[in-house]
């Protein structure tokens, strides 16, 4: 017969040092030997959650709930695990049960707010976050989640103030720093967003989501530059038709347009921190970004060539082709970049 107490404490220590697989091995043996221990199932759920095995975490937490339905912890774990499996209604239900059992625990309110956020029940999320703030005004995670709720509700100023409060309570809270980046992004401040994502990555370098956020912002910026470039090209190809100009002004126009696009991108990149510049270089060297740029520049060049090289009399016939080529280039580049951003 295994003595459960010390073994559970050992498993707890393993979870503390993030040895999720080893903890899982130990706890699997424990629950096999003593399947009636709700605490062992709870710890197993935590171990699975830590290891990213969310479905197993749901199963383990459900077992713990069955064994001890009056304890709030199994419900909270179940809610958390369900959230990761995108089962938001069930996550919300489990979170609410945890809150019913332990109305004085701020963690239970946070759990409800998180699940409600996933389920897009902003009213419930806002109320739960407010209650958590009342119960634990000095807990950074409470303000962090309150900020997320405010951001989801579109209240950028309140979201910023919550995240800044979280950072004041815990200056190493990388999640709050990341959220500040997201708020900047919503305000179309690309450079500010990247700076915050970089700070978040510095605080938690092992967390890859922050650098992925930077990658996505860079891809979006490239996509936006291509959009502006093709839009300007679309307008330029009308000039020969409207103004009856020759090839030379069109070629000059294309050159100037290309130069402006490159210069504005370079200007943006040069103002970024060195780490972000490295990421930009890496992104631009990626096959997808190169392909998108090639499609955009190629399509626009074909359109300009068509307009510049045909005799003036044939311009009305060739112009629709040029317009389609430009728009096709834009859409093609956009699809390629969206695929790349989606992959990240």
């Amino acid at each position: 017969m295994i003595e459960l107490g010390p073994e559970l404490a050992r498993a707890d220590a393993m979870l503390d040092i993030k040895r999720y697989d080893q903890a899982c091995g130990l706890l699997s043996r424990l629950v096999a030997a003593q399947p009636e221990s709700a605490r062992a199932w709870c710890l197993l759920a935590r171990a699975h959650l830590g290891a990213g095995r969310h479905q197993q975490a749901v199963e383990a937490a459900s077992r713990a709930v069955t064994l001890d339905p009056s304890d709030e912890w199994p419900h909270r774990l179940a809610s958390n695990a369900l959230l990761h499996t995108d089962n938001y209604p069930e996550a919300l239900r489990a979170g609410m049960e945890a809150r019913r059992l332990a109305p004085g625990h701020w963690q239970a309110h946070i759990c409800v707010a998180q699940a409600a956020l996933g389920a897009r029940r902003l009213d419930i999320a806002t109320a739960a976050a407010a209650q958590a703030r009342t119960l634990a005004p000095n807990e950074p995670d409470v303000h962090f989640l309150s900020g997320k709720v405010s951001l989801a509700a579109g209240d950028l100023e309140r979201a910023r103030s919550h995240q800044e409060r979280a950072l004041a309570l815990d200056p190493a809270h990388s999640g709050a720093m990341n959220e500040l980046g997201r708020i900047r992004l919503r305000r179309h401040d690309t450079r500010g967003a990247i700076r915050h994502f970089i700070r978040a990555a510095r605080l938690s370098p092992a967390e890859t989501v922050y650098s992925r956020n930077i990658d996505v912002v860079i891809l979006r910026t490239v996509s936006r530059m291509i959009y502006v470039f093709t839009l300007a090209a679309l307008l330029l190809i009308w000039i020969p038709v409207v103004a009856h100009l020759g090839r030379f002004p069109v070629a000059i126009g294309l050159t100037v347009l290309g130069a402006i696009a490159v210069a504005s991108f370079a200007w943006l990149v040069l103002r970024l921190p060195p780490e972000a510049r490295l990421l930009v270089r890496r992104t631009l060297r990626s096959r997808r970004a190169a392909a998108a740029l090639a499609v955009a520049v190629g399509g626009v060049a074909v359109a300009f060539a068509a307009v510049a090289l045909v005799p003036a009399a044939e311009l009305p016939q060739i112009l629709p082709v040029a317009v389609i080529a430009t728009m096709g280039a834009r859409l093609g580049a956009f699809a390629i970049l969206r695929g790349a951003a989606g992959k990240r």
Partner: protein
Amino acid sequence: MEPDLTVLASLRKAVEAMPDDVPLRVHLATLLLRAGLRDEAIRHVGAVLQRDPGNAEALALLQQPPGRRAEATGPPDPVVPREAPPAAPPPGAAAPPGAPGPPGRAGSREGSAGREDRPDRPEAEFDWPQAENELRDVLPPMFVDGAGTDADSAAAEAVDSYDAERSTLKLADVAGMNQVKERLEAAFLAPMRNPELRKLYGKNLRGGLLLYGPPGCGKTFIARAVAGELGARFMAVSFADIIDMFVGQSERNIHELFEIARRNAPCVLFLDEVDAIGQKRSQLRNTPMRSAVNQLLLELDDVDSGNEGVFLLAATNHPWDVDSALRRPGRFDRTLLVLPPDGTAREAVFRYHLRERPVAGVNLNRLAKLTDGYSGADIAHICETASERALMDSIHRGEARMIGQPDLEAAIAEIKPSLGAWFDTARNVALFANEGGAYDDLAAYLKKRRLI
């Protein structure tokens, strides 16, 4: 009592995550047998015997009659060929020393149909040694490059965590990885071996060496080789040997460990997964674990003050999680990046993992080229998968065959390198947390491979 399906699922996941945990596999196999899932149980027993050929519990499980569960729950199905009890380790499992690994020609003599006709025929009657002798004469050479398996003598020895053992490994036994060896020589071994010069140049022996790099790339192997080079005893300790949740026990364990090292001097004390033993205290919730880190710091400083002959080595996959106090001068102040094996090393790893398997016509050079970016553990997995493939093919054809180049190449196509997640994190660290150039070598490697 039949085991719970959730428990079985959890155990399966745990075994998947930790394929080398022998007691866990034995436990799973026992429960599977109880649940009547004999085929799956036998597979796990096979895997256990591959890792620990003499494992008594696994051998006992093999001896269990197939109808054990049926005896408790109802009459067994009398003619189910899969239920035939294998008296020897199942194919694919490593045979005990001296016994042949391959399934021999049992299949060719009987064929699967034959076995169906006689399901209760005890396989113990099969003469394995004779089959081995028969096959030995007809076997083609194992590797087409003609090299033998002498290098395999460098196999790692089993270690009891608190036992100081004499390591016979040398750096020469570590194939390839010349850069690592050179840096090891300069940073650690040369000053150790030349006390006079060391004194002349005022170089002291304070501090230890921290090996870091992706998992499964030979950090422990290198640590053993360092011990061998120094002619020192070797003590390997992992966090599981130390952690104890009773307040004061972990600290006592750590102290005892260092005392044993001092008594066995010259001794290389190797702290495996030092990020677990010495994790950043800011990340720890448990007070006992924090106390353990403090005790470790205390012991490290003691080693400096007057314990000649205790050489400290540590390894981690996540140096960024190690408490910064542990990396201050006089403690683990020198770091060495151990990267995935280079071509020569990969060849040697293939040779090692294939040495006791029936292989023929394997082009190691080509395999090494195909596995750029794979870890040693990945290569072990490839060899395992290729063996399974040949085994299943042998079963289908009713005739034993050798593991060949196509099996290995198919396994390589199937198994992707497992280091992607580590390099994702490493990239972040090199980009955002390279304070004071601590990860310059890592950043240089990532740049070279265009990962930054």
